[in-house]
């Protein structure tokens, strides 16, 4: 996409574009106003420009770092689904619409983030190398054969989706009060949760993560226990959810308390789970 053309097109539709982008408050107020008129493809660019304007000559390192971290996860997911969709005989016809929808969204997320990072004055990181068998580059990890075994493919997909939901959530406080970036992050996060729900339905497990008192992982795949660590939490904001009344009684079960809230993972936790096994260079 030619970014300069987009600026010209934006200025044709909105002659006050430059005024709107500066000062910051006006930009923040108006960023959504051209969304409906201008091609939606311009949104990530607008986002990047916003950042650049809001933060000075270029977006702060911390904001670019957040975006690049997100991009790395999206590379992982998009590469995974692209490879799955290209594997002959893997995806049954009944599920191909599901998988293709997820694949397309993930590819859009990659494009979105690269555009936003570049437009903000940052540099998108390159895609790392992946070993989806979780073998750290050996191709011989615990999930060997996932691109010919549909059930295994779905289980790995689920681990990625649920981890993706958790990863975005973990970054939200870093974007506090930033209308455009936080809203975009929350919006990608919600789509990841929609994916996780759909993959879970394909796999035949509940669309939400239902934990026991001790184990957060309900996928039946012990190798990904770490990806679900902490999902068994029952205390939110100092409130023990199991003490709250339910629809039918005076207390709430652990299963309901854990399923009603998804838990975040920190950047370091996510990287520790993925780097060295799924991401090896």
């Amino acid at each position, binding site marked *: 996409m030619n970014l300069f053309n987009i600026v010209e097109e934006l200025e044709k539709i909105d002659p006050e574009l430059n005024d709107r982008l500066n000062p910051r408050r006006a930009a923040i107020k108006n960023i959504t106003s051209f969304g409906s008129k201008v091609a939606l493809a311009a949104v990530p660019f607008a986002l990047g420009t916003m950042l650049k304007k809001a933060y000075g000559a270029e977006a702060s390192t911390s904001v670019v770092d957040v975006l690049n971290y997100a991009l790395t996860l999206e590379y992982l997911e998009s590469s995974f689904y692209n490879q799955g969709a290209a594997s002959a005989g893997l995806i049954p016809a009944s599920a191909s619409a599901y998988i293709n929808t997820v694949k397309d969204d993930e590819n*859009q*997320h990659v494009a979105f983030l690269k555009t936003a990072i570049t437009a903000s004055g940052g540099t998108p990181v390159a895609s790392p190398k992946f070993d989806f068998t979780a073998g750290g580059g050996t191709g011989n990890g615990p999930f060997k054969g996932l691109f010919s075994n549909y059930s295994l493919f779905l289980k790995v997909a689920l681990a990625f989706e649920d981890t993706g939901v958790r990863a975005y959530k973990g970054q939200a406080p870093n974007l*506090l009060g930033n209308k455009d970036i936080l809203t975009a992050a929350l919006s990608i996060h919600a789509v*990841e*949760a929609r*994916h996780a729900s759909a993959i879970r339905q394909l796999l035949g497990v509940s669309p939400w993560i239902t934990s026991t008192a001790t184990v957060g992982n309900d996928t039946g795949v012990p190798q990904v226990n770490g990806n679900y660590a902490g999902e068994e939490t029952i205390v939110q904001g100092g409130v023990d959810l199991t003490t709250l009344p339910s629809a039918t009684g005076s207390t709430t079960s652990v299963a309901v308390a854990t399923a009603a809230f998804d838990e975040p993972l920190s950047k370091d936790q996510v990287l520790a789970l993925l780097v060295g096994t799924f991401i090896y260079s």
Partner: protein
Amino acid sequence: MKTSEQDSIGGANMARRSFLRYAGLGVASAGLLATAACHKDHKVVIGGGIDIGAKGDLAILNYAYALEQLEAAFYIQVVASPYAGMTSDEKALFTSIRDHEVVHREFFKKALGGNAIPALTVDFSTIDFTKKAAVLGAAKAFEDTGVKAYDGAGYLIQDAGYLTIAGKIVSVEARHAALISNMLVAGSFAADDQVDSNGLNKSATIAEVLPIANTYLKTKVSASNYSYVA
């Protein structure tokens, strides 16, 4: 469906009492937000309506509380009066969603303590609970609106802890939304009506969401400091 949680606040005396109570004058709260209870400009009750109050985290949390009350009441009724031909699998899923929404509702109620808006009275007279299509259609509207509402209001939250909690809830709402969409049309869990061409879930402002919510509420909810008065 009316439960003890959803008793009407209608009537002048009741409204007066609610005002005193919920303006933080009457009840000392042990809730999370007790330290903010000195703000007396929150949640004014006018007639049968409610305002989520002055700008800030209390207003946003009360906004979420209002939406969760609505969702919980809806699924309580779905489970209590199943549509014709509801399968046991479907009933189990609706029961789980009901239970999640009730926990969300009770969580906000507890967290807000004396700063919480009152229990709202719902009006589901436009929903035919005997018809599967009507129930799924309404469920889709509630879930999709809920996701858009959380996504659209997240940036207004000032406290990192509350933002994280909102994030923990919105992904569960999105899981519900995807399930309900798939029950209506298989494979529509991230369709164009909810997800834009960048792969982003659509978001909505408070002023866009509350009019939708109010069509299912007898107690109308306003957000005068966020450009919406019912």
